[in-house]
């Protein structure tokens, strides 16, 4: 007997498989008395505050302020920056730093940082989610370089975790980012900066 058959048979002996409709009905009876959101009011303020709690830098800008602020942030650390080729061109219109569009994986370790957009963001937990679609590049782009700047548009921010998951397509690869890389492995105290980007900067555009 194959491992698969034997494991399924062991399970069958204890909990016999029910018809799919019965399983679905039992699933629907799960008690979900929890909140869909924990805060009313301004999600933008909450988001900015919660991201900053992770010791990320949060800058609030108007749409016309993006190119100038972005150029300033990139100028603060020398080197070239990786960007996805479908990044809105106006974001980096004023950037003086050299930009590498769609850098190869082997080039990533030599970059000063990466600039991307995102797919959604969660105010309650200060989380930014990349689905690695438009303006975000493949997963390695925002992982290998030591600095990551994410542009978050106000309409991408949802109040809480359930809203965000409902917006996402699970068939895409997803990365949830809550602050810079960190570890609690030394005496259970949080220290920023291990393998992922040690500096996270977030431009909130509204």
């Amino acid at each position: 007997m194959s491992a698969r058959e034997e494991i399924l048979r062991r399970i069958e002996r204890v909990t016999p498989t029910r018809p799919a409709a019965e399983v679905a009905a039992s699933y629907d009876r799960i008690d979900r008395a929890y909140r869909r959101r924990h805060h009313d009011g301004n999600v933008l303020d909450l988001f900015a505050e919660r991201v900053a709690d992770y010791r990320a830098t949060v800058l609030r800008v108007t749409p016309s302020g993006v190119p100038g602020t972005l150029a300033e942030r990139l100028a603060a650390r020398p080197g070239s920056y990786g960007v996805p080729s479908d990044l809105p061109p106006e974001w980096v219109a004023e950037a003086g730093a050299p930009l590498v569009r769609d850098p190869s994986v082997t080039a990533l370790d030599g970059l000063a940082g990466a600039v991307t957009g995102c797919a959604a963001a969660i105010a309650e937990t200060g989380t930014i989610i990349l689905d690695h679609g438009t303006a975000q590049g493949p997963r390695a782009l925002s992982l290998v370089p030591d600095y990551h700047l994410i542009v978050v548009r106000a309409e991408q921010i949802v109040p809480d975790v359930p809203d965000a998951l409902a917006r996402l397509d699970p068939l895409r690869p997803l990365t949830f980012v809550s602050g810079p890389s960190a570890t609690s492995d030394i005496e259970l105290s949080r220290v920023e900066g291990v393998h992922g980007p040690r500096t996270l900067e977030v431009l909130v555009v509204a």
Partner: protein
Amino acid sequence: MTMPTYIGMPSFPDAARRAVADPRLRANLAHATTTIRGRRADAVAELDDWPALREAGKQIKDHVLENLGHYLRVLEEKVTAAGGTVHWARDAAEANRVVADLVKATGETEVVKVKSMATQEIGLNEFLAGEGITAFETDLAELIVQLGDDRPSHILVPAIHRNRSDIRDIFLRAMDDAPEGLTDSPAALAEAARRHLRAKFLSAKVAVSGVNFAVADTGTLVVLESEGNGRMCLTLPETLISVVGVEKIVPSWRDLEVFLQLLPRSSTAERMNPYTSTWTGVHPGDGPRDFHLVLLDNGRTATLADEVGRQALRCIRCSACLNVCPVYQRAGGHAYGSPYPGPIGAILSPQIRGIGSDVDASLPYASSLCGACFDACPVAIDIPEVLVHLRARAVEKGPRHPLERAAMAAAGWTLRSPTRLALAQRGASASRRVARRGRIRRLPGPLSAWTETRDAPVPPPESFRAWWARTDGGRKETGR
């Protein structure tokens, strides 16, 4: 072979006695667990619907366990449809074999690893070493354990028994590229680990991971982490092999809305952990080209068969129960003789492995039944209930001490006769003569087995029955 007990592992009381006598270990543990306890309480208190989230988490997991065959088939179908390959393993030996063969098929002799309880459980690294494959742990705490040739002592922070200066010493001794003059500041230690592993990440062709959740209805795998080593392993290599216990399933994508709130707050006391990665099969142009999912039984279906004990399979490996446990805080993780220490380990290890060894038969007793673990558990596993249940099983299965049998027979004989009981009580009062400062610390002869692990209270000078007879129920009491 199921989960190997560590070679020559003594029973819990023997191992714990050694740990409790180590003041440095106790100080490290007390510091770390006290810190996290306070922070976790704050993170949980922030959500006023925590009890409702906890109840939903419990019900979702119970629903999966009741319909496990259904959801495993759905998961297999979805992962396969998304371009992944699904393997099944009855036990540790079979899972190790599957992984080793998959690595060999790539022609590689090195793998990078994301911290994974399942691969600890099956002893994968040791097995791969025997097959000529080197496994590099990339999680900071796992790296500390690996470089220190040590064993993990905590689910979330396997090197919790090490403080910063221990860690610096291990790095200087065992890390070939440790910077000279390395200090014990956590930032410097993290930087050393970053440099040490960077080249490994960029050149690795094969990665091995576990997962936190497997979403049946989409075939999506989910890994929560902090450092970015998980993202590196899940993204950069060409081949990814994930070893996943069959109980890790959640039915639907939306169920993550519950667990992404419960898990980070319970484990690291954060609103959200720094990084969560999800993937569904393979994604052309982004990440591994080959994805293998190894579904692991290894005692889980046997645990499922126990109606009281199966709730242990709800566990999401947050480790909150360890951090609140007075026994864990003093004895440390090694005494539990398993990759799963603490209260959850005390109910999980004996069920997965069976109550065969001394350590597994002793684990259900590694608790004062204070209930702090149950209160802290984000999926409401009633650990004390399972401990008591397993104690009964250990007594049924294990050999009983001849003295215990004799004592029980004698107690039955004594209690059946009022005269014999009165005589026995007078005898007990006489035992006050061996007491010191209100406690009996050593009983003589074979009875010392009882007092080795506990003090006995001194019996009163007069039993209640004797007092009642002497004073006619208090009516003749003088001096009142």
